[in-house]
Structures are given as structure tokens and as C-alpha cells.
């Protein structure tokens, strides 16, 4: 079955899809693909964007980058434990897609979640404090980098197991449809997650039951340190949706206009027809799988530099806005400087915030132990108390 958005432009990007760049042979697709850039900027969803909204999109991408760069420093300084999966290089995907959402649209993602969290409007302080393991963190220091949540902003995490969120996103779409809402769930995943079984079980149900879930494969080319050519049979990955009669497409995630256009079409299909989509969005992460990743065993420095030089989503959009006459270099510098200050302030906030008390270990496990006045159960819920609650 022909994918709904399987137009000529997408065919072109399929053909040029090349993740394993040989540094000696420049196969990187030119960023300056004039016609397609103009086309996406003139897509219906982008045509009527106000100047201030466009500046805001750029600002959000810059904020994510500066936040993450600051978090990396904090990690190196020993303030952040465990894993830190950075989103740097992929910012246009989260910002572009979230900006296309309506009131009843929801999102859920995997463990590389900082970008999505900031894009939905979580503030840097609560995010940085969570990374520092502080009580002022969005999850009170109980979730960490991989487990940010903001249900009040339609953001349902932040999930640590590769592909484990794909049935959850399906369930959110199910709940929206059951409640008669004209909403969809954007369920993000990496290219590596496409090889997990529950994803296919979910695709089957999404199509069988007409559920408004949009699977967004943020294809950064690597499943941890394993290149797509070594982890996946058959290209493109999104084509796997075809087996379930699900509309699919492949698009470039370096251009925020293209991301918005892709998401807007899928949202429309979800809202109007209650149909799922599989959207493969090509992107790239500059940092390792996580900060602890040596990052030199599976890709070359040249490859990373190539992307930074030619496909950086912030540079591309900055140039676009300069060209559109909506931005000046001074304004850009000012936005960047404010983002740096905001990130720095969030690190100071996180550092100054208190750690949770050991007694808080036992909070937030069961609803009814948090609300003892309303409990209906009897008996003992916990069997070892490392600390007594004050």
C-alpha cells in the first residue's frame, strides 16, 4: 500500500538516506536543498506562522541545546549520576513536532527526553534539579534523566526501556478515542526501538482498532553504538508500517519546517480519520548514546563534524530566519545569551536545592500510602523500613 505522504520529495530523501558516512567520501546530503526548503516553509502549517512564533521555535531549540550543554558540564563535575542521554543535534524534531500539537494531543517518549520536556514547557529549573537528584526536580529526584513527566502539559514521560513506551502511547490514543476527544498521541522512539517486538504488536492494534497514535522514529542512525545498517534489515524503517496498512513517511529532521509539515499531516489524519502513522524522521545526535559512551568506536569524528557543519537544525533555522528577514545576528546572539544564562541559573538552582530526605524513599509508591485518610486497604504494604518517617 502506498503511504499517504509518500510523495516525490520523500522518495528523494529515501534515496539519499545515508547514515554511515564514509569520511573519505562525502555522501552527506547537501543541507542547502533550496527547493525543498522553500516548499516546507510554504507548507500550510508554516505559512501563517507569525514572526514571533518562528523566533520562539528557534529560541526553544537553543534553550534545549544550552540546557543540555550545561547538564553535560554538571555531569562532568559529578553533580549528575547514572546516565545522561543528550539530544543535542535532534532539537528540531521535538520542538517542531510539539509546536504542531493541539490542545488534546499528548506525547510520550523514550529516555532521551530532555528536549521533549522543555519543548512542552517544563522549566529548566525542575529539569536540571531532577538531573541533580534534588527534591525540587520534576519527579522529586526519583526519576532522573530518563524519567521526566509533566502530565499537566500532556507529557507522559520519559521511559527507560527501549520500545517499552510504544504500547503506552497506544493506550493514550485509545483513552483519547474512548473519551471522544479529537486528539492524538505522539509516541517518539529511536531507530533501535523499531526492533522491539511490542512495537509491532502495537502497530497491529493501532491499525486494527483505528487508534490516533503517531509513531515518530527519530532515526539518529545508531541504536546505541550499532549503526542502522548493522541493526535493521530493510529500509526505510518506517516502511514496516506498510505491513499493517499504516501510512508512513520518511522526512528530514534537520529542517524544523519539514518536521512541522510532516507532523501536521499525520495529526490531521489522526484527528479526522482516527488513523495511526509511522513517521521516520532522520536526525543526528552529536554526543554519544549517553555521556559515558566512548563515541569513537562506531563512528568517525569527521562524520559528526559533517553533520554539525551542514545539518545543524539550529544553524539551518537561523539562516532561514535571517533570509526571511525575521532575525538579525544581534537578536540571535541575544537569544543565545539568554538561553545560556537560563541554563546557568537552572544549574545554580539545582545545586542550591535540597536533596530528598531518606524517609521520602517510601513516598509515591502507592496512592493510598500517600493518602492514608482515604485508604481502603488493610494490612502491611512495606516489609523493610530503612528509615523511619519523621
Amino acid at each position, binding site marked *: 500500500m502506498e503511504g499517504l505522504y509518500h510523495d516525490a520529495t520523500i522518495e528523494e530523501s529515501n534515496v539519499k538516506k545515508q547514515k554511515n558516512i564514509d569520511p573519505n567520501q562525502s555522501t552527506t546530503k547537501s543541507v542547502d536543498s533550496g527547493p525543498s526548503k522553500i516548499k516546507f516553509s510554504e507548507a500550510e502549517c508554516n505559512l501563517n506562522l507569525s514572526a514571533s512564533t518562528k523566533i520562539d521555535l528557534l529560541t526553544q531549540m537553543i534553550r534545549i541545546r544550552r540546557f543540555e550543554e550545561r547538564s553535560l558540564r554538571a555531569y562532568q563535575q559529578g553533580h549528575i549520576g547514572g546516565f545522561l542521554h543528550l539530544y543535542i543535534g535532534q532539537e528540531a524534531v521535538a520542538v517542531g513536532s510539539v509546536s504542531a500539537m493541539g490542545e488534546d494531543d*499528548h506525547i*510520550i517518549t523514550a529516555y532521551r527526553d530532555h528536549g521533549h520536556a522543555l519543548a512542552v514547557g517544563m522549566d529548566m529549573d525542575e529539569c536540571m534539579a531532577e538531573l541533580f537528584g534534588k527534591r525540587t*526536580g*520534576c*519527579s*522529586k*529526584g*526519583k*526519576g532522573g534523566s530518563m*524519567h521526566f*513527566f*509533566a*502530565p499537566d502539559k500532556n507529557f*507522559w*514521560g*520519559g*521511559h*527507560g*526501556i527501549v520500545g*517499552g513506551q*510504544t*504500547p*503506552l*502511547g*497506544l*493506550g*493514550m490514543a*485509545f*483513552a*483519547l478515542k*474512548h473519551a471522544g476527544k479529537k486528539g492524538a*498521541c505522539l509516541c517518539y522512539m529511536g531507530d533501535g526501538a523499531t526492533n522491539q*517486538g*511490542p512495537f509491532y*504488536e*502495537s502497530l*497491529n*492494534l493501532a491499525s*486494527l482498532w483505528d487508534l490516533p497514535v503517531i509513531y515518530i522514529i527519530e532515526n539518529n542512525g545508531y541504536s546505541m553504538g550499532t549503526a542502522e545498517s548493522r541493526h535493521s534489515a530493510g529500509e526505510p524503517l518506517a516502511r514496516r508500517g506498510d505491513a499493517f496498512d499504516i501510512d508512513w513517511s520518511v522526512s528530514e529532521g534537520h529542517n524544523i519546517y519539514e518536521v512541522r509539515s510532516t507532523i501536521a499531516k499525520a495529526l490531521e489524519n489522526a484527528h479526522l480519520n482516527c488513523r495511526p502513522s509511522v513517521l521516520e524522521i532522520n536526525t543526528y545526535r552529536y554526543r554519544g548514546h549517553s555521556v559515558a559512551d566512548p563515541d569513537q568506536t562506531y563512528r568517525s569524528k569527521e562524520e559528526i563534524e559533517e553533520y554539525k557543519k551542514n545539518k545543524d537544525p539550529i544553524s539551518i533555522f537561523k539562516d532561514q530566519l535571517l533570509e526571511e528577514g525575521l532575525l538579525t545576528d544581534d537578536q540571535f546572539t541575544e537569544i543565545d545569551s539568554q538561553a545560556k544564562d537560563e541554563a546557568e541559573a537552572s544549574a545554580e538552582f539545582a545545586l542550591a536545592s535540597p536533596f530528598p530526605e531518606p524517609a521520602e524513599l517510601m*513516598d*509515591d*509508591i*502507592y*496512592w*493510598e500510602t*500517600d493518602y492514608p485518610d482515604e485508604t*481502603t*486497604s*488493610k*494490612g*502491611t*504494604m*512495606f*516489609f523493610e523500613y530503612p528509615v523511619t518517617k519523621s
Partner: protein
Amino acid sequence: MATITYREALNQALSEEIERDQNVILLGEEVAQFKGSYKVSEGMLERYGPNKIIDTPISEAAFSGLAVGAAMMGMRPVVEFMFWSFCYVAFDQIFNNAASVRYMSGGLINVPIVFRGPANGGTNVGATHSHTPENFIANTPGLKVICPATPADAKGMLKSAIRDNDPVCVMENTILYNMQDEVPEDNEFLIPLGKANVLREGTDISIIAHGKAVHTSLEAASALEEKHNINAEVVDLRSIRPLDVDTILQTVKKTNRVLLVEENKPFCGVGAQISYLIQEQAFDYLDAPIKRLSAVDAPQAYSKALENAQIPDKNRVIASALSIL
């Protein structure tokens, strides 16, 4: 009060809660058109329609995860596993997602979901269909696990489980589905989770059990009285997590001898935790070592001859009791 089967009691609980709360749905393999693999949901598709009683493909990971996602958004799904053994392919959704989301979100998100289905051996279906995972479910903070052993408990506890704001795993038993007993017709008949039930008062020994082992223990207690003049107390735990520690300690302090009976496997089983609790909190009341009787520690056998030898029966309960008297 009407006399109905365990199966009908579950059906009543599900039906009453679906009528009471529009967020409650039942989903699973063969629950709708087929009327349930064990006919628990018989008549419910006709009464409540396909939006409430939902047949799923054989995709436990997807439909369990779907239900968890829907529960995070405020629905109250009841997921039926044809056998609890099949939850193993949905392990990630139950143990990483349902159990952990509340904690990892710092209490921002609740997961009011019920996973239910039979978890028992004794029907000659071999190792892959006979698992009793209540012990390792109970090992996971964030989950609750209950094992109703009677029709009344099946109704009252399932209703409580559906109204609970946290994930509750309900362990049923295919052998008990046909058991008949009196069950209140009251829509508000709720049995709180975590409350054990002393089914037989006694003075000489406490037999503490859960699930079908409760009935084996009651039979053994009758025989102990008739043939050995021993007066055994039988305690039905009903719920594993939360656990009624008070009732356990009371019966130990009363009889001073304890036999723990379960169809669960022994290593790190439910009885292991209870025996630790008793030695820690009632050590001085014990007149004999705590005795445990579990399923024989092998994968569940197919052959009737083997499986009968594997699961605790009346005679082994009697022998175990006599060994500490």
C-alpha cells in the same frame, strides 16, 4: 444471598463495576465473542457492547501496555490474562511501567489497573501454563497482589481491586471457577485488600495458606480433628501484598505452631517471607520450627501422576502438620 460459582462472582464484580464507572473496561484474549476462555465474562459483550468488553489479538505486551497507558490517562482497565503464565511476555509493561510510573513521576501519575486471570497448576497443562507468580509480583513495590480463594472473596476483592488507584494483580484459579458458595448481591460488597480471614478456629496449630491451598488446608484440618484429635486453625491470607501481618502474628501467638501451605514454588516463595516475619516478630511464641509445604521445586509437570505428587494435597498437609506437633 445467592449461591453462585466463583466464576459468576467474578462476572458480577466486573459487571457491577462497569455499570458503576464508565472508565472501567475489560480487555483480553477471547473475553467478548468467545465469552471468556473460562467463561468469566459470559454475557458481558451483549450487556455492555464492544467498547467495554474488548477482544484483543494474542499480543499480551501490547494490550497490557495499552491498558497501562490508558490507566495513566485515567481509565480503569481490567486486563484478563488467559493464564497468568502469559504475563511473562508482557513483563516489561507490568513491572517496569505499571509498577514504576507512579514512583518515577514523583506521584504525578497513577496507574489504576487490574491484571487478572488464573494462576495455578493441577490441570495437567505443563510448565508453560501453570505458573504462580504471586511471589515475584509481591517482590515488586508498586504492585499489589491478591489471591481470592472463595466466591465471595472473588467478588468483594475484585471490586476493591478495580476501585483501587494502584495496579492490582488478581490471581484466580481454574479449579476454583466452578466452586459454589453464598455471595452477597450488594453492589457495595467490598472486601478490603490486605485483610486475612480465619476460616477455621483452632488451638493446636496454625495452617496459613492462600489460593486453592486454603481448601486443601481446610480438608486436612478436618481430618486432623477426626483422626488425630488435633484442633487446627486455618488462616486464608487472601492478599499477599498488602499482607495482614497482624492476623498472622495473632494466630501464631494463639497456637504456637505454624504450617505454611502454598501451591507456589518454595524458593523465595510467599511462605519464605511469612516465615521470616514470624521468626522476627513472634519468635518467642514458637514451640516448634516453622514448617513450609509448597509445590515440589521442579518445573510444573504434565503427567497427572507427577503433578499430583507436585502440588500439596491433603495427606501431605496432614503429614507436615503432624511433623511439628
